[in-house]
């Protein structure tokens, strides 16, 4: 092959391979001596160094590899894993409201206030990182206590739960006592 073409043939091989390729293997594929191959590698390295690029040529001993530059990793990740958009159901929003105003609070209280089972919405809020477990209540069954997270504050654009709007005047959210027995 033409010596002047060798650097780009090497680039093509490294690109398709994805993995590190050794200089002896390269020189065999190109039909060049190892010396000639090394010269071509150096020429290619110079090209890659002289310009800002999204990909870089790295050398490990006598192995060569093409890699993405670390500074572009966030974009690559965003590409491979796009942000998922979701919205909260009415049920989850109600559960979140009760927890926000009564925290730390047990699921039992949330269920008593809302009048329905809340296992599903509590799980979903935990999964979304809007609430977290903050300990256990010293009561029969030692039920888990829930509170809102920093992510909750971030989502609502406030710095502290005290910035939440005041409760409606006479509200079940405030009035409902602990249930006598937590299911």
């Amino acid at each position, binding site marked *: 092959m033409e010596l002047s073409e060798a650097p780009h043939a090497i680039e093509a091989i490294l*690109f398709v391979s994805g993995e590190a390729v050794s200089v002896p293997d390269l020189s065999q594929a190109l039909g060049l001596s190892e010396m000639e191959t090394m010269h071509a590698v150096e020429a290619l390295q110079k090209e890659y160094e002289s310009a800002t690029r999204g990909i870089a040529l790295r050398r490990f001993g006598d192995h060569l590899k093409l890699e993405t530059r670390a500074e572009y990793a966030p974009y690559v990740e965003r590409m491979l894993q796009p*942000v998922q958009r979701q*919205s909260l159901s009415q049920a989850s929003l109600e559960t*979140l409201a009760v927890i926000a105003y009564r925290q730390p609070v047990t699921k039992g209280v949330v269920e008593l206030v809302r009048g329905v089972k809340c296992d599903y919405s509590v799980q979903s809020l935990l999964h979304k*990182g809007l609430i977290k477990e903050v300990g256990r209540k010293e009561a029969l069954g030692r039920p888990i206590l829930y509170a809102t997270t920093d992510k909750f504050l971030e989502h609502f654009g406030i710095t502290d739960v005290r910035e939440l709007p005041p409760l*409606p005047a006479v*509200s079940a*959210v405030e009035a409902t006592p602990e249930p006598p027995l937590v299911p």
Partner: protein
Amino acid sequence: MAIHIRLKQFDGPLDLLLHLIGKAKIDIKDIFVSEITEQFIQAVRDAPDFDLEAASEFIAMAALLVEIKSRALLPKPPKPEDEEDPEQTLIERLTAYKQFKEGAQGMASYEQTAMQAFGKLPEEIPLPPPTLEIDGLTLEALWCALRRIAEREPQGVRETEYRLQDIRRDCYTVEGCMEVIESRLSVGSTDFDGLFRDAPCREEVVTIFLALLELLKLGKAHVTQSDTFGRMLLHPGRRQTFGTE
């Protein structure tokens, strides 16, 4: 002249006709002053891989060729203006087919060139957990949620007290619970969650549930649900599998 042709080699009768025309080195429009019709019929008749399904298009074409040929032998009556000339139509179809067949050949050479370019396998990259963005989280939405709870709350308390007295008496045997559920169903459909809303202890919940399963089995009740995690409704009697229910 004996021609041995395997019909399967050809993509339909037009393909075979083009092949014969090519072999005879004639122009498409000269097809009916040549031996092509005879050769085509011969090929279809002799086809060793004759199978009716695959060959039906070939047979239809053979029939058309014979028809055209026989018309040529008859004295021509004056032709109405708008009548299609089958001979002309076939020549047009053959011409169009030849055009696309050659187009396909041109595309095949592009394909060959494109196959000389290699991509790279996607890389396997460990990814952080996906970012979740939640829509509709506003203080106003939170406030509305609280208002909804407050608005329906008093009713909920009354129901709870009422049911505490009503169920405790009977719920410790499956038979007793069945009676309660049945009596409730006797005045119409009821909410599944309503059976449990005050659920004071595990035995009651389990017993009521067993009673309900028993009623379903006996066909004295059935359940409907509009969607997953949606409200479940109990109705008296067996489910109607006909009509609009």
